[in-house]
C-alpha cells in the first residue's frame, strides 16, 4: 500500500509537470519526492503501520490534485505570458524602428511624385489647372513639412499628416491606392516622431 501510494504520487508529479521548464519540473519532482520520503521516515520512526502511512500519502495525493493542476496552469501561463510579452515588445520595437526609418523615404518619394505629377498636369495639353495646382501644392506642402520637421518635429509631422490626408481625399477615386499609402505614410511619420533619436531643437 505504501509503495503503491508513493509510486502513484511520483507518477502523478511526473505527469503534471510535463512540458514545464526543466528547472521547474526537476524542482517540483524533487520536493514531492522529499516530502514523501520524510513522511515515510517520520511515521516509521513513530512506529505507525505502513498501511496507515500509505493511506495518508494516498489521501494527500488525491486531495492535492486540483491544486497541482492550478499550480501548473499558473506556472505555464506565467512563463508563456512573460516570454510572449518580451517577444512582442522586441517585435514591436523593431517594427517601430523600421517604420521610423521608412518615414523620410516615403515622404520624399510622395513629395517628388506629387511635384512632378502637378507640373506634368499643368504643362499637359489638357491643362487641368486646378488639379495640377492641387498636386503641386501637396508636393510643396510635403517638402515644407520635411524641412520643418528638422526644426520642429511636431509641426513638421502635422503638416505632413494633414497634407497626406488631404491628398488621399482628393484621390478618392482610387481608394485602394490612396488610402493605404496615406495610412502607411502617417504610421511611419508617427513612429518616427515617437521613436528615439528623432531630431529635437533645443529652445533658444
Amino acid at each position, binding site marked *: 500500500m505504501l509503495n503503491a501510494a508513493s509510486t502513484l*504520487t511520483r507518477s502523478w508529479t511526473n505527469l503534471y509537470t510535463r512540458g514545464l521548464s526543466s528547472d521547474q519540473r526537476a*524542482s*517540483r519532482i*524533487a*520536493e*514531492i*519526492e*522529499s*516530502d514523501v*520520503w*520524510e*513522511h515515510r*521516515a*517520520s511515521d516509521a520512526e513513530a512506529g505507525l503501520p505502513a498501511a496507515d502511512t500509505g493511506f*495518508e500519502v494516498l*489521501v*494527500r*495525493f*488525491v*486531495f*492535492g*490534485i*486540483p*491544486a*497541482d*493542476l*492550478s*499550480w501548473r496552469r499558473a506556472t505555464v501561463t506565467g512563463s508563456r505570458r512573460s516570454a510572449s510579452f518580451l517577444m512582442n515588445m522586441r517585435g514591436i520595437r523593431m517594427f517601430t524602428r523600421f517604420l521610423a526609418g521608412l518615414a523620410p523615404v516615403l515622404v520624399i518619394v510622395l513629395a517628388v511624385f506629387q511635384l512632378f505629377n502637378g507640373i506634368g498636369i499643368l504643362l499637359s495639353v489638357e491643362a487641368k489647372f486646378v488639379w495640377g495646382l492641387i498636386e503641386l501644392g501637396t508636393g510643396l506642402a510635403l517638402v515644407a513639412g520635411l524641412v520643418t520637421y528638422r526644426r520642429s518635429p511636431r509641426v513638421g509631422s502635422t503638416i505632413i499628416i494633414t497634407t497626406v490626408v488631404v491628398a488621399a481625399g482628393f484621390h478618392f477615386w482610387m481608394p485602394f491606392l490612396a488610402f493605404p499609402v496615406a495610412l502607411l505614410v502617417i504610421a511611419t511619420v508617427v513612429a518616427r516622431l515617437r521613436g528615439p533619436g528623432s531630431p529635437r531643437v533645443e529652445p533658444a
Partner: protein
Amino acid sequence: MRPDPRLSPWGEQRAAESAALTYEKISSYNPLMRRKPGALLPLELQILEAGLDLRRRGDDEFHGFSIAREIQEHEGARRLTAHGTLYKALARLEKAGLLTSRWEDPARAEKEGRPRRRLYEVTGAGARAYSRAQLEHRERSNSAPELETS
C-alpha cells in the same frame, strides 16, 4: 441582530448568514471567491504561524513535510495538508516575498541517506504580514459581538 425593515425575510436570513461568515470559512477552491490583493488564505497564515513558531523554538528553516506536520499539530487536524495544496501555498508565499527558500547542501542529504530538502524561512515581510492578519482578525472578532447584540 435587529431585523432590517428594508430587507425581505430572505434578505434578513442572508444578512445573518453573511455576518456569521469569517475568513476561516473562505475556501480557496471556491471559484466565486476572489481574493483581495494582498489577502492571505487561512493555509498561508497557518504556514507563517507554524514557521514563526519553529523559529521561536530555534529552527529558522523548515521543509514542506515538517511544516505540514506542524500545522497538523497546531490545528489538531486528523490529516496532513495535501501535497498540491501545501506546495502551491508555499510557492505563492515565496512569490509574495513572505518566504524564502533554498535547496540544502546535497552532501548533507547524501550523508543522512535521504533526498535533498527544500528549506523555507519566513522573511521579515512574512512576519509583518502575519502580525497584520492577526490584528485584523482580532479587530473583526471584537466587532462581531456588536453585530449580534445590535
